[in-house]
């Protein structure tokens, strides 16, 4: 008698059922949909979907459903025509602040979606798209940093009335030449103590006709710089990519100095590269308080020293043409709460030159307003200028200051995000690019699918012919294995790539190995004259340690692949390891339960169909 206890049958039943449920989303198609995001990557206001609903209602365009997923709104439509009509309507209704992109949303039924069911994500090689690997150009970053130090040292020396021969950027460091030993010692002292000059390794040069000091940027400082540059670039990249209206972009830090950008479905790589390469900056300008902005905007007569802008509430505002500080003088900006009032605020840090200019301006302008203009350089050469903040100068300030009066902490973090994006960032260069056209992607899917099906069928036939009833049971397990693998990949949100498909195919080939081992053992036991029931039991028991050892060693190899691999290799490693795990379950427990159901209950089995 070979019988499993009830809980084992139940377990298998539950696992397979759950597997089927989570594999199901892969078999529903896609709905044409609209994706609405803020053009700046901000959070969406709650009333937005009501506005859109109303706009669509007016035009009598019906939609299937709408939902908010994080920072995006998704509207599903019955067909592509409605989708395209709706896109125009929604764009008109929402204006520039939002990006409306055409998208295909998975048509997974609500019931499945509510329990977290979702289809596997297709990799770029299967659905087409662009992959960029970008790296911070550290040489330029270092050189920018040195230039900043040079400016700061000059400013500090001037402030302290020390006359210098030269302060310049030289090679990987900087060089300050002074007239006397006394000046040099004063300068050394300043360089060690002044707030804006920290982070340098300072060396005194042997005295000659001039008295020199050389300095290099500390390693720690460079690392910090690298991190800031990376974060800044990721922020700007998010904004840019947002603008492209890509359905599910990936922008991720990889290692210390790299960013991966993946844009599924994007075909025009030239355009994508341009947009990714575009830059943003910002300018602090004084508000023209002596003229009325409303009159200027109505009459069109703008005073010559000013320019007319529109603030974020849509009201006209006059700003002086003379610049106070620009983005490349901004070192950092972060959202926080004001220590005295507890109000949300943004603290800003400027470099030496910037702080001096800011101090000069604020000293004379307490009580006047100051505005920040965010300037985006579009790839086609045009510029977009937005006034993102207008604030009253309460007291003179220089290097560090706070902007308060922001409505919420969200608003504060939005402002700081834009400020950082507009600060001078170390440039990034593309070190890897992979683009797959849509037709190749479709080809790959078709070919991969075909290979899986043919390989699968061949194995099924061979197993059925070779092991008869037991072979059919193994085939059942193989199906279950495929379903489980698919549901695991879907649940984990793993991306299916071509090498991933290769991993699945290989798993099929190797998954039967466990069954082959067991069945050969059973045959052996029968040859040795054991009864069928005893042979089944012995076969499973004896094969188990072999299967475990063999699979664990393969898992070791797959794990190493996962650790060291990038991109395609990783995808292969993931499917291979998951496949090994699921195959252990289906090929051992799964087949045993079915075999037990067939033979286990009978008292006398004369012959096994193996």
């Amino acid at each position, binding site marked *: 008698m070979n019988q499993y206890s009830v809980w084992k049958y139940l377990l298998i039943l539950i696992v397979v059922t759950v597997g089927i449920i989570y594999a199901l989303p892969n078999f529903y198609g896609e709905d044409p949909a609209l994706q609405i995001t803020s053009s700046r990557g901000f959070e969406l206001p709650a009333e937005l979907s009501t506005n859109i609903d109303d706009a669509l209602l007016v035009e009598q365009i019906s939609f299937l459903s709408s939902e908010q997923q994080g920072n995006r709104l998704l509207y599903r439509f019955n067909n592509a025509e409605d989708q395209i009509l709706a896109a125009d309507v929604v764009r008109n209704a929402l204006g520039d602040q939002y990006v409306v992109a055409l998208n295909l949303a998975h048509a997974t039924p609500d019931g499945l979606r509510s329990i977290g069911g979702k289809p596997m994500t297709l990799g770029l090689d299967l659905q087409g798209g662009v992959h960029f690997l970008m*790296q911070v150009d550290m040489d330029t970053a270092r050189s920018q940093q040195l230039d900043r130090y040079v400016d700061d040292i000059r400013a500090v020396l001037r402030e302290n009335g020390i006359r210098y021969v030269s302060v310049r950027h030289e090679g990987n460091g900087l060089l300050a030449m002074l007239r006397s030993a006394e000046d040099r010692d004063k300068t050394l002292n300043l360089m060690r103590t002044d707030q804006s000059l920290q982070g340098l390794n300072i060396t005194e040069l042997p005295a000659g006709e001039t008295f020199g000091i050389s300095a290099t940027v500390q390693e720690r400082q460079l690392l910090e710089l690298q991190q800031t540059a990376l974060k800044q670039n990721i922020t700007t990249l998010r904004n840019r990519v947002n603008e492209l209206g890509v359905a599910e972009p990936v922008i991720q830090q990889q290692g210390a100095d790299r960013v991966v950008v993946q844009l599924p479905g994007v075909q025009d*790589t030239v355009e994508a*590269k341009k947009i990714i390469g575009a830059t943003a900056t910002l300018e602090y300008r004084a508000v023209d308080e002596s003229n009325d902005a409303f009159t200027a905007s109505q009459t069109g007569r703008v005073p010559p020293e000013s320019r007319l802008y529109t603030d974020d509430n849509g009201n006209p505002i006059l700003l002086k043409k003379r610049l106070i500080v620009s983005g490349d003088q901004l070192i950092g900006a972060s959202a926080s709460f004001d220590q005295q009032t507890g109000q949300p605020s943004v603290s800003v840090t400027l470099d030496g030159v910037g702080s001096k200019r800011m101090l000069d301006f604020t000293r004379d302008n307490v009580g006047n307003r100051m505005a920040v203009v965010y300037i985006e350089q579009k790839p086609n050469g045009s510029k977009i200028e937005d006034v993102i903040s207008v604030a009253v100068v309460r007291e003179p300030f220089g290097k560090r200051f706070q902007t308060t009066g922001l409505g919420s902490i969200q608003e504060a973090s939005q402002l700081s995000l834009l400020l950082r994006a507009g600060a001078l960032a170390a440039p990034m*260069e*593309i*070190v*890897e*690019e*992979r*683009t*797959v*056209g849509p037709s*190749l992607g479709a*080809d*790959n899917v078709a*070919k*991969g699918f*075909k*290979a*899986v099906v*043919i*390989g*699968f069928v061949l*194995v099924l036939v*061979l*197993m059925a*012919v*070779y092991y008869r009833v037991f072979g059919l049971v193994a085939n059942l397990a193989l199906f279950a294995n495929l379903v489980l693998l698919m549901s695991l990949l879907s649940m984990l949100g793993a991306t299916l790539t*071509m090498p991933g498909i*290769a991993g699945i*195919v*290989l798993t099929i*080939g*190797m998954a*039967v*190995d466990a069954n*082959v081992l067991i069945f*050969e053992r059973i*045959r*052996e036991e029968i*040859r040795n004259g054991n009864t069928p029931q005893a042979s089944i039991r012995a076969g499973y028991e*004896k094969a188990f340690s*072999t299967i475990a*050892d*063999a*699979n*664990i*060693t*393969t898992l*070791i*190899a797959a794990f*190493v692949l996962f*650790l*060291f*691999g*990038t991109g*395609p*290799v990783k995808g*292969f*490693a993931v499917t291979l390891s998951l496949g090994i795990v699921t195959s252990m379950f289906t090929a051992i427990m799964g087949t045993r339960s079915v075999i037990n159901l067939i033979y286990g209950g009978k008292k006398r089995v004369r012959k096994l169909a193996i």
Partner: protein
Amino acid sequence: MKFLNRKTNIDFMSRRNMALAFSAVLIVISITSLATRGLNFGLDFTGGTLIEVGYPSAPNTAEVRENLANAGFDSVVQTFGAATDIVVRIPPSEIEESSAELSTRVLAALSEGVEGEIEMRRVEFVGPQVGEELAEQGILAVIYAMVGVFLYVMFRFQWRFSVGAVAALFHDITISMGIISLVQIEFDLTVVAAILAVVGYSLNDTIVLFDRIRENFPRYRKRQPIEVVNTSINETLSRTLMTSTTTLLVLMALFYFGGEIIHGFAFTLIVGVLVGTYSSIYVASSALLMLGVSKYDLMEVEKEGATLDARP
């Protein structure tokens, strides 16, 4: 159905010297080929740019090459899969040209003088530094996999088995790479993945055999190690053949239907499975015998003590 109807009793091990000589010859050929012909490193490792385009009708590759040469590109032009598909490879340029723009210019050069529209199917650009890193990671991965396996087998079996398994691995990797070098299959990341899959497969086979040897030593106490090994190989032979057949079947499906992109991967694995099957029979077990494996190696000291105590 059965491949082997009766219990087989082939004397594999008596021919082990011949097999070793055969392996040695293969390894020498492989190393020679790797040293002289080298590997046909793909873009992943050399860096550079690869562009695959689809033409409306089969183009003349010589003309395409000339067009590109006129535009100032030192390139290799090949058809890829279909006659209408062209792959252009451009080595990493000496002058650090704004890398990604290169593909745009190449596409422009290719479009020249073509009626109808050419379709961009794939662009890959890998910076030279990235290429170096990928190569380094690949080599490290293989080494770590070997170390991991060595330790696991030592823990589960015994050090002689570890040496046998790793010797078989080394044998399989060397010969697989030798054959890749001989037929000049493009060596890219997917081929590295395939090599590591070969590592996994070959191990699988070796471990199954070792497991049987471990089981058989206590069972056939009176027999010589060589006989035990022979019996074990025979007992696992039908399983070895069946598993290799199913794996080869799916790999063949992948090779013939999976498309050009996966060709190198499938080819490497097919070679690897064949070599791996052979090596677990001859290399791993020969190594065991050479290292003087005996029944005492697999008896745990503790257990021995326990059985002695149990005696009256």
